[in-house]
């Protein structure tokens, strides 16, 4: 009797043990996304082709490339939050002539959830412009042999990428007020029309004082001195074309042999971790008129631990149509959004991988070379997307020439 009960108990345990090994076959939750691209404004007679979208999921970093489409894309994606970038070709009629060009669209942080989702993105026509480009930004500074920060040796290079002589007189360089690592719902949101800047410095001149030949460039330095005297790991900026100088900032050195940039609004202090973006622009109005008419006051809510703190700020705005070039900078680990319209720049570039990355020092972002002309001058890549147009973590050009 005892043995019979024991046998039954044993069989019960064995059967429970085997049944415990259940397999689960639950599917990954996916969403059918319907993505429609809206045609560029004021275009009526056009044909889109070779449109392709890249979906980057922000939680996993996974990228999904779509098949080519023409107007509406239906794609199956795992649920998540996506940055979407679209580019393609457009063929259109203007003034009786057929033109072809490129179109682009981008939008960050799109929530894709549920069985179906619908999104639309406005396309922007990529317009070739013949003006200066920002070809290099050296914003990180260098390190001393004692591993201390050395900040005075920053510079920017602006480049004539066209086929004709351009004049740099009056060009302004602006650093954005907003950070690419801190996203807020600013009110009013002017990003589709203008760029908010926390400083503007301007190349002096009356109009034709500073010609730049095709394939040539100007170096605009923070302090145009030979920094190697103070930091052997730095560079010689003695031969810079311009320098920005402000008496209100301690530690500034004025090389009287190098023309100073004009401080149109505040003073330039380059963010050395790459959280701010830069623009190159031409202001078509008088400086006094600009300073009077283009102030930008904004409000936003800072929410922390469930409590809302109303905040506000002031800066200046530069209309997008005045901007000749824009470069968004950020850091991979902190990136939240680009702080210009995607029409100006739909990507971003960087030095370093994380905030305060010690590997970023002595590195710059440099625009890629598209082609080299027979006379040795170079054509730089400009697709209005800094993610692809720039080399991140590059050796600064002026360090190569040391």
């Amino acid at each position, binding site marked *: 009797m005892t043995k019979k009960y024991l046998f039954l108990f044993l069989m019960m*345990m064995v059967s429970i043990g085997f049944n415990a090994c259940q397999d689960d076959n639950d599917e990954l939750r996916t969403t059918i996304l319907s993505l429609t691209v809206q045609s560029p404004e004021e275009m009526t007679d056009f044909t889109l082709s070779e449109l392709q979208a890249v979906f980057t999921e922000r939680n996993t970093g996974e990228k999904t490339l779509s098949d080519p489409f023409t107007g509406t894309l239906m794609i199956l994606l795992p649920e998540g939050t996506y940055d979407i970038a679209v580019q393609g070709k457009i063929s259109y009629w203007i003034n009786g002539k057929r033109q072809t060009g490129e179109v682009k669209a981008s939008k960050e942080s799109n929530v894709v959830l549920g069985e179906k989702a619908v999104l639309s993105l406005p396309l922007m026509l990529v317009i070739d412009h013949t003006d200066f480009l920002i070809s290099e930004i050296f914003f990180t500074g260098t390190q001393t042999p004692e591993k201390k920060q050395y900040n005075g040796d920053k510079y920017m290079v602006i480049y004539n990428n066209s086929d004709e002589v351009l004049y740099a007189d009056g060009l302004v360089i602006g650093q954005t007020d907003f950070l690419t690592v801190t996203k807020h719902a600013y009110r009013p949101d002017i990003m589709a029309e203008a760029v908010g800047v926390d400083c503007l410095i301007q190349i002096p001149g009356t109009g034709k004082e500073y010609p730049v030949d095709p394939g040539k460039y100007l170096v605009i330095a923070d302090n145009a001195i030979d920094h190697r005297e103070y930091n052997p790991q730095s560079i010689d900026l003695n031969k810079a074309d311009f320098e920005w100088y402000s008496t209100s900032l301690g530690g500034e050195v004025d090389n009287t042999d190098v023309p100073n940039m004009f401080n149109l609004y505040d003073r330039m202090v380059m963010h050395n971790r790459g959280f701010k973006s830069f623009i190159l622009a031409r202001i078509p109005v008088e400086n006094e008129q600009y300073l009077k008419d283009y102030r930008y006051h904004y409000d936003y809510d800072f929410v922390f631990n469930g409590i809302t703190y109303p905040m506000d700020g002031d800066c200046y705005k530069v209309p997008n149509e005045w901007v000749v070039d824009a470069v968004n900078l950020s850091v991979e680990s902190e990136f939240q959004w680009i702080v210009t319209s995607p029409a100006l720049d739909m990507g971003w570039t960087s030095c370093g991988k994380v905030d305060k990355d010690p590997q970023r020092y002595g590195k710059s972002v440099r625009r890629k070379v598209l082609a080299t002309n027979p006379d040795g001058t170079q054509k730089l890549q400009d697709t209005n997307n800094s993610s692809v147009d720039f080399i991140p973590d590059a050796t600064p050009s002026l360090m190569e020439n040391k």
Partner: protein
Amino acid sequence: MKFRFLLFVAMVCLPLFLGAQNDTLLLYRIRNNRSLLTDFSRAPDFNPAARAFSGRSSLHQMHIGGHRQSGNAGIRQQGTGQTFFTAEAESFIRHDGRFIWGNASYRNGQKDGVEGNETSDFSTVYPYVMMDSIGRNNLNYEQYAFSGGYAQRLSLLSWGMELAYRALMEYRTQDPRPDNIASDLRLNGGVHYRLFSCYTLGAGFHLRKYKQRNELHFYSLLGAPKIVHYTGLGTDAYMFAGNNMRTRFQGAARGINIQLLPVDRYGLSATLGYSNFSFEKIMSDFQNLPIADVNEDTYTTVIAYLWKRDKYHMGVRLQTEYKDRKGTEYKFHSPQYGNYDKIAEERLFGNKTNGGKLEFLYENHAHQHWVWHIAPHALFFKMEESHRNPSRKMDFSRLSAGADMGFSKMSGRSLWQVNGELTYQHTLRSTLNVPGLKENSFAGQLLHNNYRYLASNGVCSRLSLQWDYLLKQNRSMNLKISWYNQSLKKYFGNCLTMTVGVSF
């Protein structure tokens, strides 16, 4: 630190004041408690009430010693070597149907070659650990563990309770500097009811509370490299990679088991247990934002049969364990800086292990003063690990076979014990499929290295020598040296342990 050390010393010395056992056969009690026959059913591991049917003798022991492990064998995130000092005391008292036991231990040491992991208790909280790319580092640690229990055997009913606590601190004195504190509290309880003349049926429960604070610091004035939060098979929580270096884990476990035990140790014993362990990973840097959770189910079976014929004891034991760990990652939308709205969660990580071990035991007590045993065994183990987005998989199955042999001799006032074990493991099948992961990336190198180690064939051997010497007043001192070696294809490991102690 001072208070903890004094508390430890007090707990260790407490049994001294309880008085020595009157039983002069101290060496026999020592030999009995070390025998494979004692607790062959493993029942007390699940149900403390089973202590009432344990063949264990009353004994108090204390020892201190050192351990050194070296080589390149091991899961990289857990380290490939270790050096530690240990002090331990344990006590078991049986008297008139009552059983009391306790254990206290302290360990202070350093783990070598820890790679790609700045979180403690990797085997508990994997895969959601904090991962750096600095490389191989040594990690200092201190661990305190206390446990105690009580069981009582009545006429038909027996009951027991056991409480155990472990505290672990891990840290490093150069960048990157983890500062981890883990605490692990367990409560086991159970009853047994005498059902038949020779058998008793029992049921037990198990509760556990686990917490870990995991923080990483860099003292370098120039910042820190990228830290990622690993999610298994070369993937990470992309949104939180960077400088987010403060996390914590909160978990709990609960389990039940049923048992059948022979009253006098000989006969059929069986245990069936189920346990569920779950925990959350929480980002302290983001207002205590949970970003992932794990749910693990464990099914355990132990069936044993022990019998004796004259002075020969024989046993057969089958142990199986099926463990299914599922990891769920949360997805977020950040509408503005500092705000993370949870929008979805997805079960992306899975790890299933399935294993069984069949052992035979033959122990010969033909002579009063010397005993020998042989215990051949065979083991099957299978693991499947997967990640669903991106789709990646790693699996292997392994068969091991070997034997444990031991010899024990009493001579005058000495007890000599020699034990040896030899096991050969052979991988039956192994696969690693990780599209999109570059083998020369840091995460890729780590994963491929772990895979090659887990899928290696080779031999594991162990040898130990223990000498107990009977002093006056029913005290004995002991010296133990043990050596363990793992020789696999391209991987090797050696462990040497030496302890000295007293028993009474």
